[in-house]
């Protein structure tokens, strides 16, 4: 019995999909609303605009891949579903970023963790950015709808050992840990979320809102990159697009593939990508804010070899978290961090394990007992954690310059200490800090001393990111932000930005639900202004 593939079924029903092998692009396309991107913010917007009766075109630079393609194999997944083959790096190569690039965006490859925007984050936005409507009560109904639409609920199945050991170790130290809500329906508990869900249990945009929009008559362009807005008189006049290969190389030497004309444009390419398009377009930016304040939740890691078998490749990847270390100091004090674990498949484990040669070879055999813990740092709340700035490469592709400050790297040290202590409490035989000078040590006392002695320098300290936020931040005035509180660009009246780039700081939690909930409200407002109709997500 083979599982259904809702995308292949939709294509057979007559979905309008063009680009790549799906069919040639026409020289121009006219619509009511053109949406750049097909991820978290794009999908929510596409569904609501379609519900409101608008003619929608969705423009995605990645490929259309679906459950039949998802073989749970890392090399295929990294090459076909991720930005820069899962190797996007900051300018000094100090941080490696996992971001999606395919229909569904990062939601197609994320690990399903779903959190509403924390009240402490919202309070900071109200105070520092004048965003008085961004409060818990006002946003609650929009989060509620997103949770219903995407089947978001606390994971009911027992956490796998990889996650359980976080809870167990933390509990011994009096540190509270909780169950993670996930956007899944009929989950097989495989653990392959990061390679695309082969059973369609993950309620990503790929299997929910994008199909809704396509069933409602929207057009999807794939392998098509939004290159440049034509701007005049404070409005977007049109969008020129080029055809691109799976590795982002332009087809036809980057000659124009199609021109999109719309009444309203919604930019939802995600952080890093959305600011880059505006930079390429030389969009008005009177206060030089565009692309600045790009945040990453920089992640520090420790690898433990546990006494017992962990099998970290198997089972729901993330089901337990702790926010304890977000609350041990004020939000604008020393950088706080959220604790989670990572699923470990061969490439992810093998490439991220520090070291090489004979010494490391022994560790490879301990893979079934390995646990990698993550400390996701909450950047954006301190003047020494102002994030990065998006630049353009000579090709027009984005490049994020995010220097790691001492402030953030000291946070990495505190994160490693917290994680190592928890891992030993949970039964670790040895812990290896994620650092090029990190030696394995076999007691908490030795590990604590070793981590405290590490020179916390960029590059030597292994820092990753799976969450990209900011760069087109919201604010109550144009001196503090690129985007108005209603999601419209401060200087371009027919451009809305509906993705993670609108966040004025990092979220302090895995961001997908923050994007769904906030964009739900923005898109309902946009639909009302464009059509007079009230539409909801659920």
């Amino acid at each position, binding site marked *: 019995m083979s*599982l259904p593939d809702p995308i292949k079924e939709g294509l057979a029903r007559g979905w309008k999909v063009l680009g790549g092998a799906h069919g040639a692009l026409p020289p121009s396309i006219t619509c009511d609303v053109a949406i750049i991107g097909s991820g978290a913010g794009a999908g929510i917007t596409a569904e609501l605009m379609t519900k409101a009766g608008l003619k929608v075109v969705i423009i995605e630079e990645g490929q259309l891949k679906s459950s039949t393609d998802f*073989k*749970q*194999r*890392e*090399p295929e997944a*990294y*090459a*076909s579903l991720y930005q*820069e*083959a899962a*190797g996007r790096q900051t300018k*000094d*190569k100090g941080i490696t970023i996992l971001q999606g690039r395919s229909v569904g965006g990062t939601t197609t490859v994320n690990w399903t963790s779903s959190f509403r925007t924390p009240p402490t984050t919202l309070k900071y936005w109200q105070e520092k950015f004048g965003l008085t409507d961004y409060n818990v009560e006002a946003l609650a109904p929009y989060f509620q709808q997103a949770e219903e639409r995407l089947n978001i609920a606390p994971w009911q199945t027992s956490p796998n050992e990889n996650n359980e050991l976080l809870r167990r170790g933390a509990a011994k130290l009096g540190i509270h840990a909780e169950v993670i809500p996930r956007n899944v329906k009929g989950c*097989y508990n*495989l653990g*392959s979320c990061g390679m695309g869900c*082969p*059973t369609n249990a993950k309620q990503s945009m790929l299997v929910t809102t994008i199909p809704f929009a396509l069933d409602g008559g929207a057009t999807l362009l794939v392998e098509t990159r939004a290159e440049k807005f034509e701007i005049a008189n404070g409005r977007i006049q049109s969008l020129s697009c080029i055809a691109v290969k*799976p*590795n*982002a*190389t332009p087809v036809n030497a980057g000659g124009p593939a199609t021109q999109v004309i719309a009444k309203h444009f919604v930019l939802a390419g995600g952080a890093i990508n959305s600011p880059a398009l505006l930079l390429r377009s030389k969009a008005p930016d009177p206060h030089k804010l565009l692309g600045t304040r790009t945040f990453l939740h920089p992640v520090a890691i420790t690898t433990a070899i546990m006494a017992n078998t962990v099998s970290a*490749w*198997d089972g729901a990847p993330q089901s337990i978290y702790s926010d304890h270390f977000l609350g041990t100091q004020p939000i604008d004090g020393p950088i706080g961090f959220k604790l989670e674990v990572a699923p470990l*498949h*061969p*490439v992810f*484990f*093998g*490439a991220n394990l520090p070291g*090489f*040669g*004979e*010494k*490391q*070879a*022994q560790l*490879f*055999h301990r*893979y*079934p007992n390995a646990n990698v813990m993550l400390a996701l740092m909450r950047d954006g709340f301190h003047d020494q954690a102002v994030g990065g700035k998006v630049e353009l*490469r*000579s*090709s027009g*592709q984005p490049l994020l310059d995010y220097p790691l400050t001492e402030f953030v790297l000291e946070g990495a040290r505190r994160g490693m200490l917290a994680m190592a202590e928890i891992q030993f409490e949970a039964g670790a035989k040895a812990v290896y800090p994620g650092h*090029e*000078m990190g030696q394995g040590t076999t007691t908490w006392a030795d590990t604590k001393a070793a981590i405290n002695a590490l020179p916390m320098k*960029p*590059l*030597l300290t292994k820092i990753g990111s799976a969450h990209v936020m900011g760069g087109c931040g919201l604010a109550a005035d144009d001196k503090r932000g690129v985007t108005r509180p209603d999601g419209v660009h401060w200087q371009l009246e027919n451009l809305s930005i509906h993705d993670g780039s609108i966040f004025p700081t990092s979220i302090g939690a895995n961001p997908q639900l923050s994007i769904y909930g906030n964009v739900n409200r923005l898109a309902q407002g946009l639909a009302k202004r464009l059509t007079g109709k009230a539409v909801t997500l659920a």
Partner: protein
Amino acid sequence: MSTYGPPHLQRRSLLKLGIASAVVLAVAGGAVALMQPGLQNGKLTESSRLIFSRVGQTILAGTLPVDEGPNQIAINSLLDRVDAFIAATPEHVQAELSQLLGLLATSAGRWGVVGLSSDWHDATLPEMATAFAAMRVSSVSLRVQVYQALHDIVSASYFSGPESWAVLGYPGPRAV
């Protein structure tokens, strides 16, 4: 170094080339003129295959088979996977890698970046291990960047093959 215009202007335009050029300036300006690209049509040249086979033997020492025959088979498989890995990367990554491999093929680059005095063909595994251990924790950022790039390409390529699963004890994906 041959000059067209003032040295400081030339330096600035070289620096735009990225990772390799900062080393070139420190090591020997003339090396730029002698460098052959390390990739041809997106694939490793013969010279780059030699470099990656030696780098692979160093990074994966203790994991790859020791006996010459099986070792050679494993290395050839690794090199094929490295080609596939590179093919999936964007143009700017391929351009930078081509430049880096071209630089590492020169004695000035090999010595200045990797710290290896013997050439790639003759260097022993202990020599290479010593050189890589120093690169990994160097106070020169560029050397750490190069170590990490070579390590990550080799590791990602090796572990993308099901032959590596037995080493790890990974049972493979669950059937659905």
